[in-house]
């Protein structure tokens, strides 16, 4: 019940912060991965280069679903920003439900840009089902389709290294963002830019998805500081022998 109460408090705080940020847009600290992506997307949209968004093989019915949902929010925003580009943005996924939502997010992105009639359903693709079959299916798309930006946003494990390498061979900027620890280590080593820890979930705020995403980021930061303070208080109490707190 305490968890339920905490979730309700979190939801109330999120609504309050969204209303606050609607009136007063928040300034965001610099995150290299998203800043570079913003700059590259602006350039790509102007020069008609192709963007490939890899959503990974995360199952929406499992805990990694949140990473997939964040990837979809990123996809919608990037599709809207590149909708008028000569080469359509391509989204690949390794889970069937995620694929259906990816096609819908792409369509919604074109709708946001006011050019829904140029949307091609074939740009949302199921590359394979599962992590390695997905990587096997997405590799040729990254190598053969003149991709200039490859964004890995979702659940990726070690297979991210294969995707990053394939994209880098095509001289593409690779931005890796995943919620998986192994995947984060791999993208740190292999991608041009990587988002570490909870930075994946900050993508919406940095790519201009609106006040809800900024509010969500503020909520994340607030909760993180609370957890830090709680851990430090617990450690101090243990040191001082206050067993009731530590």
């Amino acid at each position, binding site marked *: 019940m305490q968890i339920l109460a905490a979730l309700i408090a979190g*939801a109330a705080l999120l609504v309050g912060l969204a209303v606050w940020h609607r009136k007063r847009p928040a300034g965001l600290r610099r995150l290299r991965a998203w800043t570079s992506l913003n700059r590259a997307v602006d350039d790509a949209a102007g020069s008609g280069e192709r963007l490939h968004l890899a959503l990974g093989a995360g199952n929406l019915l499992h805990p990694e679903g949140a990473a997939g*949902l964040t990837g979809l929010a990123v996809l919608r925003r990037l599709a809207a920003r590149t909708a008028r580009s000569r080469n359509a943005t391509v989204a690949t996924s390794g889970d069937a439900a995620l694929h259906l939502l990816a096609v819908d997010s792409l369509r919604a992105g074109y*709708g946001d840009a006011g050019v829904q009639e140029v949307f091609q359903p074939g740009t949302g693709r199921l590359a394979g089902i599962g992590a390695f079959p997905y990587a096997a299916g997405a590799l040729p798309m990254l190598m*053969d389709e003149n991709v200039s930006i490859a964004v890995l946003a979702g659940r990726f494990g070690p297979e991210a290294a294969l995707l990053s390498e394939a994209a880098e061979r095509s001289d593409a900027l690779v931005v890796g963002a995943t919620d998986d620890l192994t995947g984060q280590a791999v993208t*740190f080593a292999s991608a041009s830019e990587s988002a570490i*820890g909870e930075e994946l*979930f900050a993508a919406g705020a940095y790519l201009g998805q609106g006040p809800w995403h900024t509010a969500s980021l503020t909520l994340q930061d607030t909760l*993180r500081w609370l957890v830090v303070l709680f851990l430090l208080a617990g450690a101090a109490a243990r040191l001082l022998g206050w067993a009731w707190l530590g």
Partner: protein
Amino acid sequence: MVRVALALVAGGAGLVVLLGYFLPELRAAQALLLRWGMILASAAVLVGILNLASVHLGKLRHREKNAPYSAVLIASLAATFVLGLLLKPGHPVLAAIINAIVVPAEGTFMALLSISLLSAGVRLLQRRLDLMSILFVASAIAVLLSSARVPSIETPIVDSAAVSWLTDVFSLSGARGILLGVSLGAIATGLRVLLGADRPYGDG
């Protein structure tokens, strides 16, 4: 109107599933919704496979680069699908296909991956020479040395308490910190979707 209905269905279903973990009265409804979710996800697999087939048929039709690979994919897909319909999933022929083709292919990918990771590690310092990259490479070397020792040879630095402290305390606490941050991000994303503020479907 459709947008509101979609948001209500998604938010309502999510709320019932979430509350089902706390209120025993909602457990049956939670289980029912999860079952429906699984059935829908299975149906989505069929739609996804049709998409996969149509993309590769398109490549064949337009004689794109690497079209022969697409032909192999379509032929394999059709053969496995027909065999799966005619035989049962546990049939020895289907098991043999999995064991003789799919498992070795995944093994090959793992082998390729080790080379990719090695090359990425070497190129990291060329691409981004900063404190974080140096720490990353140093930690990776320390973990590798401490986990792959040379038999019957004493390695003073590797066997020291400092290396095990680095891997057991420093790395583990860092990993836990990252996981805490990821969990908080996932909670915030879940709340946003539950409240209907983030809709990865429709025109919302």
